[in-house]
């Protein structure tokens, strides 16, 4: 799955669209809409679509969406 699709899926898990368009370089933790509900729905989406269950440590160790994508691709 291309990274653009991954970024789109991430965007769909946010309650409101971000003011600036998202990209692989987006530092997701700085987004105001990145809250516990967004983590829940995104974790669920990635597990359903890629079969990869992201854990707290994965989010903690990632800065950008590309970092997260690399984790998912490695484990998928």
């Amino acid at each position: 799955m291309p990274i653009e699709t991954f970024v789109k899926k991430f965007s769909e898990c946010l309650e409101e669209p971000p003011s600036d368009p998202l990209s692989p370089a987006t530092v997701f933790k700085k987004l105001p809409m990145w809250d516990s509900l967004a983590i829940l729905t995104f974790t669920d989406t990635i597990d359903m679509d890629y079969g990869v269950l992201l854990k707290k440590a994965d989010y903690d160790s990632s800065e950008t969406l590309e970092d997260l994508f690399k984790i998912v691709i490695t484990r998928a």
Partner: protein
Amino acid sequence: MANCSFKKSQIRGLVTCVPSKEKRIDDELDLFDGNTKQIARLKKTIGLDRRRVVCNDETTADLCESAARRLFSETDLAESSVDALIFVTQTPDYSQPCNAAVLHGRLGLEKSVAAFDVNLGCSGYVYGLWLSYMMIESGSCQNILLLAGDTISRVVHPKDRTVAPLFGDGGSATWITRSGEESVSWFNLGTDGLGYDKLIIPAGGFRAPSSSKSKAEITDQEGNVRTAESLHMDGAEIFNFSISEEPSAVRELLDFAKIDQEEIDYFVFHQANRYILKNIAKRLKIPDSKVPMQTVERFGNQSSASIPSAICGELSPILKDANKTKLFLSGFGVGLSWGSAIIEASNVKICEIIEYK
């Protein structure tokens, strides 16, 4: 834990008692700093709505006693016929003695009764049933009174948004008896103790005794307030645990029982929240109509009382019917611990929710 099955035990009645005091997330603007959008989102996504909570002088033992008294008054189970009392709770009246002994005295049971507590939460009702069925199948008991309940509202910090709006209180009483006809059941239980700290009250026990330090309020980065003696939940890890362990536990027990998923009439999962319930149902491809999920929105996550509460609140007419209903029960949570059971139910004498007065 190996899978196991039984043939002679049956539920004859169950009652769940809920406190009369209701809290609504709509009324808790202060907790959410006036953020009505976040409240609306929590209602829509997670299904948080109403919950029943005890007043300060009400305990799990009180709720379960009310449920038990209703069970005795509405069925032909006599107090003198009870052979064992099992009390499942993590919020007992005292650290010593156990709630089962306290209730044994309050209910006036015989001295020959075996009475003990089981310290489990969301998986506890299934563990209690498993113990009850095993004690009956061994020949040592004819009638067992299983009490399961919790008052988690008393261990959450009221200013902690990660737990306070989720948990409600409840106490249940279930009568399990030796069945005259064959009634087959299957059980599977599991534990992942490495996750012990994902849902925990860190202090107040003997590892970290209560102190002025453990009672000090701490505010986290999101503005949630709690002390070391309040319930802490790592919501993301608990969610991951639920969606990874629960569906596989269901499949494993169905395989062991050699029962097709379609043969199960209802899947009664621990009422964690609507999002998790819908998610598990989706992963297992179970139609929503077979999964009771109204209970958590009416009463909150009632820990060990949530499964009997869902049965009493949503399946009562079906269980009272003479035709056998196949139920898949499954609880999962604190421990981390999980337990699943497939049981047959029919002619249940009483199956209702009452309010504590």
